[in-house]
């Protein structure tokens, strides 16, 4: 206190006010809180009206809206509800008008009649939990009067525009997607044009490019099988479900699926877009991936698809063994052509490729080749060996294979491993059990994980079959091998 007095003596301007706490039970003070951005200026207010928001209806509807008497009423319902509430200890609060939010309507002095500003003031809790708030108002005699603040209300402007309800919002949201779709339609169109151009000019270049990231001959073979059945619905669906994987290695894919993919885009592009619009991973950005991308992730994806397609190895081999299947296939394709005008082009391409692949078959292996789905080069190579070996069989009922290739440097000599006895036993066992095709045998042995590559296995099986010399039957164009059991 003394220091204060000292200070007061030192400094010229010291004013003292008394502070009073008036007692007025009837008057209560509240705070109105506005955001600065609302630009509220009390001085500009011409008239202001306040009312409590009427939520009685909502409150009532929560309670119940059943009729008390007459039609639809239930005798003794209220008493029963009351009793039930008492039993469960439910206390229903009464409706209080003074607890409802304030509605404030303000007319500014400057603006016209039409521009009322409307605010809604919601009571805030927790402001006075740990402290007390007082307003200090200067009275006429210069003393301060301190009044406690009872409530805080946060006033926010009421929106004049109508907000969307859930359904409308949904509709708008869909439209947002559609805008994307227009874009993708245009994009698809452009891509198709590009594709066609590419197919004509850059097919050879692409071929070499794709060759660069093939890991082995096996890869090539398996992926060819993957793409080999044109009419197969499953394969188609699989491809559609994995647009990302498609995109991962675009060059390779496009080339291999050349005809099919383009047909899909041309003929059914409309439906395609709609389908893809549902998914976020639609084919937009895939094409920007460079052709030679050796992204490890994509590599993995590719492997997964290959493994999934592994079962189809069998069918591929079957086709190559019974080459008359091909003709059927072509006929199927032609049927599809009738439906699809665009496919005609593809078919021509395919035929072109067919001829080229035929040529390459007879020529050197390392020459860049067209990867037509049906006549992949490395694929038939394995099967051809098996085929030829069976054909060399004296009792072979197989028709002489269409194209026999001279023994290339790639084909390994049939080296029988040390566990050939085991193979022989197993093949014998299979054949005794039921008649099988060679492909089925191959499949069985593959699943045994003998440690040999499928190429090696083919050799081994051929040798073994020669050794075993089973009985042969042709059922539905497929050759079944069987053995009479020793017992029976």
């Amino acid at each position: 206190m003394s220091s204060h007095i000292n200070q007061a003596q030192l400094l010229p301007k010291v004013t003292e006010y008394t502070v009073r706490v008036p007692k007025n039970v009837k008057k209560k003070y509240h705070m109105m809180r506005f955001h600065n951005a609302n630009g509220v200026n009390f001085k500009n207010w011409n008239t202001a009206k306040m009312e409590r928001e009427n939520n009685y209806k909502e409150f009532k509807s929560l309670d119940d809206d059943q009729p008390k008497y007459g039609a639809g009423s239930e005798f003794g319902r209220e008493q029963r509800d009351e009793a039930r509430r008492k039993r469960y200890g439910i206390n229903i609060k009464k409706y209080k008008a003074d607890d409802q939010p304030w509605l404030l309507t303000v007319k500014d002095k400057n603006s016209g009649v039409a521009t009322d500003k409307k605010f809604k003031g919601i009571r805030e809790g927790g402001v006075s939990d740990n402290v007390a708030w007082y307003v200090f108002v200067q009275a006429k005699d210069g003393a301060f009067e301190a009044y406690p603040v009872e409530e805080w209300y946060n006033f926010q402007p009421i929106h004049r525009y109508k907000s969307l309800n859930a359904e409308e919002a949904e509709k708008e949201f869909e439209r947002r997607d559609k805008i994307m779709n227009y874009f993708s339609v245009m994009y698809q169109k452009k891509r198709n044009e590009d594709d066609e151009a590419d197919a004509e000019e850059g097919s050879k270049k692409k071929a070499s490019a794709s060759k660069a990231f093939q890991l082995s001959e096996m890869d090539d073979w398996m992926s060819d099988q993957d793409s080999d059945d044109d009419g197969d619905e499953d394969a188609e669906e699989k491809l559609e479900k994995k647009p990302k994987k498609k995109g991962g290695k675009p060059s390779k894919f496009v080339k291999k699926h050349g005809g099919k993919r383009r047909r899909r885009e041309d003929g059914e592009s409309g439906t395609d877009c709609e389908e893809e619009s549902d998914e976020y991973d639609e084919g937009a950005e895939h094409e920007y991936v460079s052709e030679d991308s050796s992204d490890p992730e994509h590599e993995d994806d590719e492997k997964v698809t290959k493994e999934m397609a592994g079962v189809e190895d069998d069918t591929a081999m079957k086709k190559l063994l019974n080459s008359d299947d091909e003709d059927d296939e072509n006929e199927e394709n032609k049927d599809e052509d009738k439906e699809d005008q665009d496919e005609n082009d593809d078919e021509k391409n395919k035929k072109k490729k067919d001829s080229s692949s035929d040529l390459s078959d007879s020529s050197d292996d390392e020459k860049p080749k067209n990867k037509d789905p049906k006549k992949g080069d490395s694929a038939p190579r394995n099967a051809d060996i098996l085929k030829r070996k069976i054909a060399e069989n004296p009792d072979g009922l197989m028709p002489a294979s269409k194209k026999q290739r001279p023994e290339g440097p790639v084909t390994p000599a049939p080296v029988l491993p040390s566990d050939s006895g085991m193979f022989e036993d197993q093949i014998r066992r299979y054949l005794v059990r039921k008649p099988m095709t060679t492909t089925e045998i191959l499949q069985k042995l593959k699943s045994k994980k003998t440690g040999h590559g499928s190429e090696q296995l083919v050799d081994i099986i051929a040798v073994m079959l020669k050794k075993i010399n089973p009985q042969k039957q042709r059922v539905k164009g497929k050759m079944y091998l069987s053995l009479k059991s020793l017992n029976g």
Partner: protein
Amino acid sequence: MSGHAVKDVNLNNNSRGIWLVKVPKFLQREWSQYKESTEVGRLTITKHPQKRSSNIAFSLNETLESVKKMPRQHKFIQHDLKQCLGVISETVDTTPGCEPGSTKVSLEGKIIQKFECQPVMDADYVRLKQEVMRAAATPLRTSIAIDRPINVFKPISRHQHTLEDRDRSSNVNKNFRADRDKVLEMIFAAFEKHQYYNIKDLQKITKQPITFLKEILTEVCSYNMKAPHRNTWELKPEYRHYTKQEEQALD
């Protein structure tokens, strides 16, 4: 709905500047005790000629008896206002002819400065804080030693008054089959008031044995087994006095 009436806000004081002061709870407790208007203290505003800001100190009125234990010296710390704050007051309307409980609203002014009233750390304040801590540390429940054991009664399942009740009810509650038409009349009268009845309620109303009542009810009524009025009886459509549309409208 008097609470929802639209009130004109009195804007006479719309340009008045008001201070908003944050006050510690013990001061509020003290100030709310006073029965009438009291002078609680003095504000000393010291203006330095060099500086822009001024020092504000607040000292409690030492003539008041209850203030003696409190920290008397306080300083006002200024905070900047981040929002637009207004003060309104609600006054109970005492003019004759208006509804009880209705209020008048007036704008008291705009907050121009915001202060925090902080006690100066002196011996008084430390003592106050110690007291507060001590009070907080004392447990709410304490054990009391009693000098003699308290009587605890063994519970009885059959009290005298329940026995009496049972006797009375066994005599009265014997229901006899009345005339069928009379019962029907009673049922129809009941269904004029409400649409749905539980069979127990109908039994109380008609005072008939439940089997007999059920016989009649199956003729003129249908039984609801589904949610909104489960386990209740209602009249078959041909006996109703209200139309279907009316019922649906009410539902």
